[in-house]
Each structure stands twice: as C-alpha cells, then as structure tokens.
C-alpha cells in the first residue's frame, strides 16, 4: 500500500490531535477533578419515591459548608423550587424523576444532568458567590415541556437558613374558649439558631424568643382569649424570620357540629414556606398522589 508522504504526515497529525483531545479530557477529570454523573446512586422506584430524600424534596445541611439538595423532576416542574443554598458551599444534588426523562440544568453553568426515572443523578457543585441561576429541563418531556423551569438561589451566608415553620390552630372556637396557636419550628441547619416566633392575631402581636439546636424542632404555643377577639373570622399569622404561616380562626357563639374538633387539627396550612410560589403546585401536585404530603383534606386547600 503506498501512501503519499503528505498523507502520512497528516495521519500523524490526526493521531496527535486525537490523543491530545483524550489527554485534555483526562486532565479535566484527574487534574481538575471534574466528575461525570455516574452510577454512584442506587436505583429508586419512580412512582413511589418515599425514602427520606425524595418524599420531601429539600436542601439539607450535612457538614459545615456541605449541603445536599434532593430534587425531583416531574411534568412540568422541579421540587423544591426555588432551591436555596448559601454562598461558599459545596452542594451535592440528588435528582430523580417521578415520571418521564427530564433534565436538570443550571443555565449558564456546567451543572447539567439527565434525569431518568429509576435513576438518581448525583452532582457535587461548589458555589462561591451569591448568584441566581435559572434551571431548565432540556429534554422533551411532554406538551408543556417549555414551561418546565426552576430557580437556584445562592444567597449570602447571613440570609440563609433552613428553618421550617408549621403553625396550627383550631379553625373554629366557641366564644370564651382559649385559642391555642402552636408554631412548630424546625431548624434543619447543623448549628443552633436564635430567633423570634411572632404571632399576629386581631390587633394583638405576641412574640417569644427561642433558641433551637441544630436538627431540632421547637414548639411554641400562644394562647389567645377568644372573647377578646370577639365573634367573627380572624386571620392570624405566625412569623419566624421571613417565614410565615397564616390561617383563619372563626369565633362563634356556638359550635355548629362536634366534628369540628377533628377538622380543626388538620386545618393547618401544609405548604409552609411556599407562600410565594404557590403556582407551581398546580403542575406539581397532580402527580404526587403517592407522597406523604397528601392534600386529602379538602377544606385545607390553599384558600389564598
């Protein structure tokens, strides 16, 4: 076989090119530590997702500056949305799908993975500066694919917390009875937090300072005299930092039915913290019938 000298030269150059490409990629992997999404995680059941990571998709702190974000993708939303993490943190995303193949891609970055039902994508990412990133699904997932988006907020250290607020009170009380408003505050950070729980009801504002250890839950109960409020509907709001939970209590002369007691317990707002992004619920919740977060209580629907 006779090959022209120039062509031999080109053959060598082509091989150099190929080996150079492979070498660059290898340098990125070994030298810079760029890791591929792989098979690190075990498989899951996409229609159940009831393990502690995905039954309640959220951000959790696992080390001093280390966080884990459990994310589910479903037609046509991400949960949680938005995802909030602090600056200077190392965040490991665990992303899985409840239905079809999606992707989880932070726009303008190299954080990008396919989200395949049954598989969990693991990506560790370092966030330095406060910033905000759009999240898109870049794999076609159905007729509203183009509406599937989310946000990741990287917030300054002092604005970041992992506080979960859940407040409960009876929905209806008889005039003269006490109204117990119970605020359950969970601190999901590893370090203790000092904060103030505030209740506003009628014209009254009461507050209590609390210290909650890392990973602990604090219950604060405010007792309000219904007689002072008078008959009628009264809106109450519990505030902890910038988390609020709000509902209405009815003070009546006589309770209509005795079963009101049972309802009252459940009539707490489930979507703590979700006040400003209630919209995404429309798409998201349809598929979630299997999760613990059931919305079985019709009266507890997001009235606002």
């Amino acid at each position, binding site marked *: 076989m006779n090959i*022209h000298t*120039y*062509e031999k*030269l*080109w053959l060598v*150059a082509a091989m150099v*090119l190929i080996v*150079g*490409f492979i070498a*660059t990629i290898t340098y*990125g992997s070994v030298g*810079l*530590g*760029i*890791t*591929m*999404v792989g098979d*690190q*995680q*075990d*498989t*899951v*059941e996409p229609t*159940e997702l*009831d*393990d*502690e*990571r995905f039954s309640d998709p959220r951000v959790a702190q696992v080390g001093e500056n280390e966080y884990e974000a459990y994310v589910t993708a479903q037609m046509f939303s991400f949960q949680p949305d938005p995802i909030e993490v602090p600056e200077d943190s190392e965040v*490991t995303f*665990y992303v899985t799908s409840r239905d079809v193949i999606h992707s989880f891609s*932070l726009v*303008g*970055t*190299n*954080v990008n*993975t396919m989200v395949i039902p049954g598989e969990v994508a*693991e*990506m*560790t*990412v*370092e*966030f*330095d500066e406060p910033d905000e990133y759009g999240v898109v699904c870049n794999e076609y997932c159905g007729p509203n694919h183009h509406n599937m988006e989310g946000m990741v907020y990287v917030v300054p250290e002092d604005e970041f917390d992992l506080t979960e607020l859940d407040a409960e009170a009876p929905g209806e009380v008889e005039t003269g009875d006490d109204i117990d408003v119970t605020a359950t505050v969970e601190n999901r950070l590893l370090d203790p937090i000092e904060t103030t729980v505030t209740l506003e009801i009628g014209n009254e504002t009461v507050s209590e300072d609390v210290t909650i250890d890392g990973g602990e839950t604090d219950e604060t109960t405010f007792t309000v005299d219904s007689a002072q409020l008078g008959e009628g509907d009264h809106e109450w709001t519990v505030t902890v930092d910038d988390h609020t939970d709000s509902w209405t209590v009815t003070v009546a002369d006589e309770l209509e039915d005795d079963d009101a007691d049972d309802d009252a317990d459940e009539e707490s707002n489930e979507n703590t913290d979700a006040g400003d992004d209630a919209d995404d619920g429309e798409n998201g919740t349809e598929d979630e019938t299997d999760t613990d977060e059931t919305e079985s209580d019709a009266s507890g629907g997001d009235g606002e």
Partner: protein
Amino acid sequence: MSQTAEHEASNETSEHVREIGHDEFDPIGTLTLIGIYFLILVFLWFFMYFVEFLGNDPTVVSGTLVFLATGARSA
C-alpha cells in the same frame, strides 16, 4: 514543488490542460489547506475547553462517594 507547467488559464468549461499521473502529483495545496484546518482545530479546542468550558463555572466536581443508607426501597 514539482509543478512544472505554468500555464495560465482557468476556466471551468475548459478541458484538461494536462494529465498529471500518480507519481508527479504532490498535493501541496491540500497539505496547506489541511494544515490551516489543523491549526484552527487546535486553537478552537483549547479555546472551547479552557475558556468556554472551564470559564463556565460552577462545574460538577469530585462527588463525595457517600451512599445514603436510605437508598432505594423497592416494591
């Protein structure tokens, strides 16, 4: 260069002005063109990898190989 004939005529409808056999043909023009292509490829590769890609932080870095004990709960 082994090109000898320096006939100056180029027209797409013209017939061959000469026959060039295998041994007398040195594809120096091809080497020139493909050399330029090679340089473009090398330059663009470095540009794409080290400027566009690595400059597009954040990037997925060495994931902690911690397996969550809670893993999958199969049916």
